[in-house]
Structures are given as structure tokens and as C-alpha cells.
């Protein structure tokens, strides 16, 4: 099912100037929100994060402002290291951008750190099970396969579906 919102955004992409601007603004907005939410989840003040990265508190305040939009790759890599999350930068088609726009969730806006992922993965393993069988690790790509997947994901898509059900 395609949402009204999704359809509206897709239709608005006919203008090259607008779709370029929208792609940039979506990145600027979500980056700023992610930085603030991850910092708050760590219970850090802006000054704590600044000290961690050798920056001024005012700089962190800028990073957390969606109007800023000048985050460098170097800064983003340093932030990823500070929050112990991965940074993924890639080119995508606009259809994927729209999908990303309509499916923001708290987990996506504030991804868990590696330690939190491990905690949730282990916490979800039944106590009677064989830990090594349930927590899968690919020997060629030794990344913990996490079961961190909260069911309370709140996205526009979910909310609109719920409202449709109520109606």
C-alpha cells in the first residue's frame, strides 16, 4: 500500500531543483536529530560530547541544528566512533529516499550503540538455549547478528495504518 504522503512526495520529485533540495534537507534534518538523540540517550551534555571530540560546545550545538547542514565526513566519522555506531554513506535512487523519509522510527533516529545491541541480543536468548547456536556470527564477517528490534517502532506508515483501522 502506498501512503498518501509517500505519493505526494514522489509526485513532488518531478522538479529536479526540488528533489535535489529535498534530498539534502532530509539528510540535514535527520543527521541533526540523530546527533542530538544519540547524545541524549548517552545522557551526555553538549559539552560532554564536545570534550570527547576536542570541540567547543557551540560546535555541537551547530551539529544538532537542522539548519546547519555542513557536517563534514570527518566529523561524522568521529561522531560515529564517539557513539559507537556505524556510519553508512551511499548513493541511492530517489524512490529509496522517499521510503526512508516515511519510515523514520525512534530506533532509526537514535540507533543503539554496539554495546546496547549486544545487550539486547543476549537478553533475547532463551536461558535454556545454547548461546553459541542462537547468537549467529558469520566467521567471514564477524559482526554480531543483533536481535535488537523493538516492536514499538513508530513511523508515519504505522500511524496512518492505525488511523485507517480506527476509521
Amino acid at each position, binding site marked *: 500500500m502506498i501512503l498518501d504522503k509517500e505519493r505526494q512526495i514522489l509526485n513532488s520529485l518531478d522538479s529536479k531543483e526540488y528533489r535535489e533540495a529535498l534530498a539534502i534537507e*532530509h539528510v540535514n*534534518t535527520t543527521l541533526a536529530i540523530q546527533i542530538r538523540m544519540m547524545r541524549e540517550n548517552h545522557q551526555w551534555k553538549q559539552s560532554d560530547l564536545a570534550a570527547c571530540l576536542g570541540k567547543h560546545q557551540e560546535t555541537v550545538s551547530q551539529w544538532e541544528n*537542522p539548519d546547519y547542514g555542513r557536517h563534514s565526513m570527518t566529523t561524522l566519522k568521529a561522531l560515529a566512533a564517539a557513539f559507537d555506531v556505524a556510519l553508512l554513506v551511499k548513493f541511492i535512487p530517489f524512490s529509496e529516499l522517499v521510503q526512508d523519509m516515511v519510515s*523514520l522510527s525512534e530506533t532509526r533516529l537514535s540507533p543503539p550503540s554496539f554495546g546496547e545491541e549486544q545487550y539486547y541480543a543476549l537478553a533475547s536468548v532463551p536461558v535454556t538455549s545454547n548461546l553459541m547456536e542462537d547468537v549467529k556470527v558469520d566467521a567471514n564477517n564477524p559482526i554480531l547478528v543483533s536481535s535488537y528490534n523493538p516492536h514499538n517502532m513508530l513511523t508515519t506508515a504505522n500511524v*496512518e495504518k492505525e488511523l485507517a483501522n480506527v476509521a
Partner: protein
Amino acid sequence: MRIVSLFCDYIDVNGVNVIKIWLDGLEPGAKARLNARLNALEQMNRTEWGVPMTEVLKGDKDGLIAVRAKYNRIQYRLLGYDGPYRGEFTILACGTERNNRYIPLNIGEKAFERIETVEGNPTARRRRHDFG
């Protein structure tokens, strides 16, 4: 408990979405910034709302909330309120802010007038925000 708000646009007496018309009149970058902001805000927990993205207004605009965005040194403001139904935030009037003054100057009065209109006939006078 998470609380979110879906954005709605004020619809005038002729059935025209005046919010959409105002947004369409902006340069593409400014319109994209505001729509990207609205998109993110409506998927965030309301407890996460706050400056610089939103501002709870005081004084003669008490009861209104401004969605904020700065683009090319212009401070854009979308004024709205929580309603008419729970889980909805209706954008009532649009403008800019300069030196702590809103333009148009009567944007607050206009917004309050429109609240009464929306509350009087929610079906006709508000519609889900148009992200196009």
C-alpha cells in the same frame, strides 16, 4: 508512552489549502527544508520537539506552536495548534520572523481566528498536510 502528531493544513472557506499555496510560493530550497522538517517532526515523539525545530509561543500567541526553519538568512515560521483532534497538529498560518517580530504582524490573530473556524467544522476546514 510515545505521543506523535500528524500535521494538517488549514483550508479556507473556498476549500483552498492556503498552507500549500504559501509553501509553493517559496523557493524550492526553503519549501524542501520546511517539508523535510515537518516530515521528521511528525515521526518524532512529542517530547523530542523543541528549539530550534519548534517553539511554544507565549504572550499574545500563547496556545500556538511555531515550526521553525532558517533558509538563506530568512527565519520561516509555521504557526499551528494541537487539534482539532487528539494526535493532530493543524498548521494555521505561515510567515517569517525578523528581530523578534513576525511578518505579517497579525499572524497570531489570524491563527486564533482560524482555530475557531477549524474547531467549528473540522472536516471541511483542515486536511492532512500536503507534502507535495
